[in-house]
């Protein structure tokens, strides 16, 4: 959000910075505020450092055990705890047959979140432009309230709905039609689970979950487009479509990218809804409908089993999956910031077109 505010307008929005006061002039109230805000500012940073450190320390034995097979093996197995034998790799002992290859989960996480992102961005942006430019003012309020209500639905409800209603509906009525499209679009070919469990259903539910994130940010941005610029465009004889294309979209573009990244982060880490819908198969999806699992849902699903591992290595493998997820979120976030920095400038971005 900070990012959006700073970049979108290029104009500082906060009050002008007050000249630094000398220490002896501080009242007790000032000191309290200084301490409280200092502590408050430290907590998020300390939290991230703490979590990262713990994850790294916990994951080290599992990383030593797995080496590069984490990225090359798609057969994750926490091992047979009741076998009298153990597997030992690089001096680390794990339950018999343990293999912590995470390729399945990396593929599952990336594919489900990217499909969701590709669908959610145009829907959100299109919907918001519709709301702000074409829908009558009286309807805009209620409709955008609905949009924000969507953000308030707990993810377990999405998961339950996807498992019991949406998935079976897709499996029975939508996927058969989609698979006929396979003649033109080959990636729609293939078979699907009867109850719709799988990658595409999970991605569609994720789409619904991240639309409010992208849309509400976009709506705030569209509202901030200077009236002068947009009315100027109309006054120059542009149609509304041209005005949106030339003024509104360039103005909000960087903000949309930033909000899309927020949505992507949500989709990467979404746990319970994905767990219920994606099928939790221990293999990469065989086609766009295929069952698979993600990093987050696997941690939630297998942690209880991992806890009963006498060697303790399975819990460390879970920490390794957590570390992978954290790294993935960080990379997407940083890449996004880089993109935003590259394409934005302090000048009013009007007129560059789409």
């Amino acid at each position, binding site marked *: 959000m900070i990012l959006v505010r700073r970049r979108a307008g290029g104009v500082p929005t906060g009050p002008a910075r007050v000249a630094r006061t000398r220490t002896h002039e501080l009242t007790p109230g000032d000191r309290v505020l200084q301490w409280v805000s200092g502590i408050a500012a430290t907590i998020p940073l300390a939290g991230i450092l703490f979590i990262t450190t713990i994850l790294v320390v916990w994951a080290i034995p599992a990383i030593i055990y797995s080496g590069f097979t984490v990225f090359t093996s798609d057969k994750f197995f926490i091992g047979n705890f009741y076998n009298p034998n153990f597997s030992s790799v690089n001096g680390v002992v794990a339950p018999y047959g343990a293999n912590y290859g995470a390729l399945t989960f990396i593929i599952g996480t990336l594919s489900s979140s990217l499909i969701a992102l590709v669908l959610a961005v145009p829907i959100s942006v299109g919907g918001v432009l519709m709301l702000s430019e074409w829908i009558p003012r009286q309807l805009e309020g209620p409709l955008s309230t609905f949009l924000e209500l969507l953000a308030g639905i707990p993810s377990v409800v999405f998961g339950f709905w996807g498992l019991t209603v949406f998935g079976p509906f897709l499996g029975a009525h939508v996927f058969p039609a989609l698979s006929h499209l396979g003649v033109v679009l080959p990636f729609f070919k293939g078979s699907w689970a009867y109850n719709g469990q799988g990658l595409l259903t999970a991605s569609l539910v994720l789409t619904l979950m991240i639309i409010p994130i992208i849309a509400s940010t976009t709506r705030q941005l569209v509202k901030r487009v200077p009236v002068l610029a947009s009315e100027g465009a109309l006054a120059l004889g542009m149609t509304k479509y041209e005005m949106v294309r030339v003024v509104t979209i360039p103005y909000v573009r960087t903000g949309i990218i930033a909000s899309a990244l927020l949505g992507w982060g949500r989709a990467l880490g979404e746990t319970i809804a994905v767990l219920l819908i994606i099928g939790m*198969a221990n293999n990469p999806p065989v086609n766009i409908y295929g069952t698979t699992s993600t990093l987050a849902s696997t941690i939630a699903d*297998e*942690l209880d*089993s991992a*806890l009963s591992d006498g060697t303790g290595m399975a819990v460390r493998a879970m920490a390794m999956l957590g570390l992978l997820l954290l790294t993935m979120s960080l990379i997407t976030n940083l890449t996004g910031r880089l993109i935003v920095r590259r394409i934005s400038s302090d000048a009013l971005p009007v007129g560059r077109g789409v």
Partner: protein
Amino acid sequence: MNVRRHASIGFAVIAGAVLVSACGSTSTVAPATSAPSSSSASASSSPTAMAVQTGNPAGPQTLSEAGSSLLYPYLQKLAPGINSAFANITLTPAAGGSGTGQSEALSGTIDMGGSDAYLSAAQVSANPGALNIPIAVSAQAVNYNLAGFPNLKLSGTVLAQIYQGTIKVWNDPAIAALNTGATLPATPIIPIRRSDSSGDTFIFTSFLSATNPTWSSGPSFGTTVSWPTVASELTAAGNPAMVDTLHSTPGGIAYVGISVEGAALVDGLGEAELENASGSYVQPDSTTITAAVTAGATNVPASLAASLIYETGAQAYPIVNFEYLIINPSKITSSDTALAIRTFIEWAISPTGGATADNLSAVQFVPLPSNVIPLVNTAVAQITG
């Protein structure tokens, strides 16, 4: 978890303070020595039982339990009973999964961990003295969604081949051979398995391992196994979701804990008659489960880590298991807590205490066989705090 640990420590301190004050004010309560010797032996249910010291602790004791979601409803039924039988004992059961129960009990975060599976050898060697104490017997049904065939006969080796993907349709010759006279449809079989870590997976895969050598040397058994990849397979998290998924999946087959069996049958799903080690086909009910336990109880080791899977006997149902409380005596520091745990377990397994027909039948469990009780008593006596 830490919060809970601190809370329980805090409580132990409070309880200790209450105990001291109780001793100070009255002299009728048992002295607070390291081995409280209350005379009440109300719970020893077998004449051959080793004398286990039980009784109402001098001060209030809260026993924390977490773990198996299959055992949880049963412990909820027992909680009011133990409190009215022994006013100073309060049981606070929680669910969370067998793995949670095992690890939290071993680490001492909770007093007792509920588990459908006994501890593995690696866990016992990492936690010397840790105990698996069975308090009841549970079972598992195999249900399927195939209209017109309410009671098909199935065997463990056929189930193993279904979950390996080598038997793909309901009219496969292997299934037809078990059900002579039935004209089975060519509906594809959709195996449904638990995605989450589960005691049900543990006993189901134990059954497959006992009956099918390929399964035994491949996925083997555990709360999570490396399931063979079957294209049509579906997954569900939790027993209720297994029933839901099966209900919406014609041709599906699923393993379901006995405590939610009622829901499966109300839904009109079929319940398999499973082939037992003596070659007869049985469905789970109190008679067949008891027959399996009676047969299995003859070879229960002192560690109580016993499988009741695939027992011999014409009536014996093949997928039966002990429901365990996992206890790590080395983490129990208070002798009063130890007394409360001993008292609770002895009361819970007594037919005049917690193991009443009403309590057990509510979750379709059956009581422990009489020849296991002395082994339980020996184990319980090791909880001294």
